[in-house]
């Protein structure tokens, strides 16, 4: 029987790692993720998790050790955030290029300077071009579930790519919620033992990994990462379906909320989706036709789902906790890519908000709504809008 426990997302992530039974974990503390390695240390100390836990001297070594262990053919896990993820950056490309299904839990946190430990998505968004799969959790249950799903997808032979699961700093990492911990046997059935098909650092069948490629081969190697990302779309759907069958919780790449007959749809990720759903309820009571959509999967970017969503609205209002300079938010760029060649498309208005842990309140969302409504009425609006900016201190 699954048990329910009240816990923080960091603990949920540690539980997910425990259930997935990685053989090697290498991690380094960073706020807000520190509790993940701490909790895992306890599991290992109590013999509840039979893994080698390498207490590395930096995130760079954490991910390097994961690459080494994964190249040796075992399931691996690590957790980090912000500067820690940025320190891993170089090796993230390598993990994807070497097609190693490592899973990282990320407590989404802003990047310095100025130093700030609170939530936005700039850390994982900055790694969107590494080839890693990216999932974003709305709540602590999702943090646990998505880590299990991430392994399932990452280790699929058609994919073999590393995956990161983000959950918002403090809003989730440090906030307790009831979380259902699935049965170990069911998780074992869902994930199975990780048994790589090829010989990995096996003296009986030596292979060379991490080679140099001349121009004659590099592009093809990059293409296989592209292809694996494309393959992941279907594999993710299958994993979601199997997960639902086994554990009863439904996941979708883009989860829609009250989008039927909506004129404006707010699109967001992570914990903000919860706020936005409530906001939609609040507006619907006033008869305003709005809906919400939550991106659970950000890489591979769910192009088809975005196109389907776009057919339902006149305005897509993107709410983003990250900045892509000159562009606006990363979602804005991604949505534009998905819709550019569609014959009919809604207006897309981009909102940057909640950076560095600033609260996103209904008042902020009212500000965004007002702009979205102008766009709906055919009035000219800025494509990119910073919401809740304190102009008086600029």
């Amino acid at each position, binding site marked *: 029987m699954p048990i329910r426990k009240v816990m923080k997302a960091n603990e949920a992530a540690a539980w997910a790692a425990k259930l997935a039974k990685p053989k090697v974990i*290498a991690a380094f503390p960073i706020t807000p993720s520190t509790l993940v390695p701490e909790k895992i240390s306890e599991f290992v100390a109590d013999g509840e998790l039979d893994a080698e836990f*390498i207490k590395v*001297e930096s995130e760079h*070594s954490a991910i*390097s050790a994961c690459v080494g262990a994964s190249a*040796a053919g075992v399931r691996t896990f690590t957790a980090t955030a912000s500067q820690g993820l940025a320190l891993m950056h170089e090796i993230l490309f390598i993990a994807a290029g070497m097609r190693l299904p490592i899973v990282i839990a990320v407590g989404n946190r802003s990047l310095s300077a100025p130093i700030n430990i609170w939530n936005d998505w700039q850390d994982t968004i900055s790694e969107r071009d590494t080839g890693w799969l990216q999932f974003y959790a709305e709540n602590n249950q999702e943090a646990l579930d998505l880590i299990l799903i991430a392994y399932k997808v990452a280790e699929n032979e058609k994919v073999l790519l590393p995956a990161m699961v983000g959950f918002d700093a403090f809003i989730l990492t440090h906030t307790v919620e009831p979380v259902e911990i699935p049965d170990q046997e069911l998780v074992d059935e869902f994930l199975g033992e990780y048994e790589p098909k090829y010989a990995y650092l096996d003296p009986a069948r030596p292979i*060379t990994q991490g080679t140099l490629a001349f121009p004659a081969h590099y592009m093809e190697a990059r293409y296989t990462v592209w292809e694996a990302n494309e393959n992941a779309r279907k594999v993710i759907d299958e994993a979601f379906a199997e997960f639902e069958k086994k554990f009863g919780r439904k996941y979708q790449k883009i989860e829609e909320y009250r989008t039927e007959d909506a004129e404006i749809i707010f699109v967001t990720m992570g914990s903000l989706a919860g706020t936005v759903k409530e906001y939609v309820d609040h507006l619907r009571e006033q008869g305003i036709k709005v809906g919400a959509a939550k991106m659970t999967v950000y890489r591979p970017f769910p192009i088809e789902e975005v196109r389907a969503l776009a057919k339902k609205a006149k305005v897509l209002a993107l709410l983003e906790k990250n900045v892509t300079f000159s562009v606006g938010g990363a979602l804005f760029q991604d949505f534009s890519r998905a819709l550019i060649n569609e014959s009919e498309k809604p207006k897309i208005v981009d909102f940057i908000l909640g950076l560095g842990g600033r609260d996103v309140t209904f008042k902020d969302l009212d500000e965004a709504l007002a702009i979205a409504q102008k766009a709906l009425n055919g009035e000219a609006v800025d494509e990119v809008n910073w919401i809740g900016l304190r102009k008086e201190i600029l």
Partner: protein
Amino acid sequence: MAVRKPPITTREYWAPGHAACAGCGCATALRLATKAFSEAMEEKYGDPNAFAIAQATGCMEVVSAVFPYTAWKAPWVHVAFENAAAAASGVEAAWKKLGRKGKILAIGGDGGTADIGMQALSGMLERWHNVVYLMYDNEAYMNTGIQRSSSTPYGAWTTTSPPGKYSIGEDKPKKWVALIAAAHQVPYVATASIGNPFDFVKKMKKAAKVDGPAFVQVQCTCPTGWKSPLEKGVEIARLAIETGVWPLFEIENGDIWNIKIQAPGGGAKVKREGGRVVAIEFKKPIEEYLKLQGRFKHLFKQPEAIDVMREQIKAMWRTIGVEVTLPKPEE
């Protein structure tokens, strides 16, 4: 008729066909190191192949693993420039969980070890991974075209330490990573040289057989970066030992007070106290070593720079508890 046993296994792990320059001393070092490792694994575990290699970016990596070819007949992984020690940590942990017997060999150049990889190396040693870290020390970044590293010796020309009107070439004394490694009090640390291959093999075997981390720093010549004759690699390396430039020693269990210094040969007079080397009177001047290498050519126009080098070498020996006398060439 009795067949003489070859001095070292005929098994090859670093196969011919790699793309190192002709006369590359580092290629020799890797070939010997893997053979020694294989012998050690055979003696310890009864399986000569019971090892895997994690290697840093650098000359020895790019010349050995050009897709779709490989020079490696052992399981081998390259991750990045600065993280051979960290990647090896992961491999070792995975092997432990897989119940695989054997040892991991991490390989890095002087740049990947003394500079950018120093932190990962320190972490690996301190965490006590069952890994031998082999630093092949060709005394500069060769892969990117001969830039100085912190292991480049004083006075050497490199592309980023060019001699000029206001420059003598590299102006800092060499950083001795073996001593830094020893400060971690690991079971085994040694310096070695391709100028004494038997000693190098012996040390690699010893390193491979200890339980826990070990570190070996081997000086290997690079005719391209040192501007030295292709065929003189071993001779130059031997001169480094015989003139006092390259000390050979072993440190067990981090016991720096009990450092085992080897007699250099080349007519040097060794004074011992209670079995311990306390002084060495070298007979060959360091100029004999320097003059075979284009990287030191400019120093002969400024002999006072060579005197500075002599003082630095003395200071290095003093650090390891030995007073040395270094002769000047006869006028």
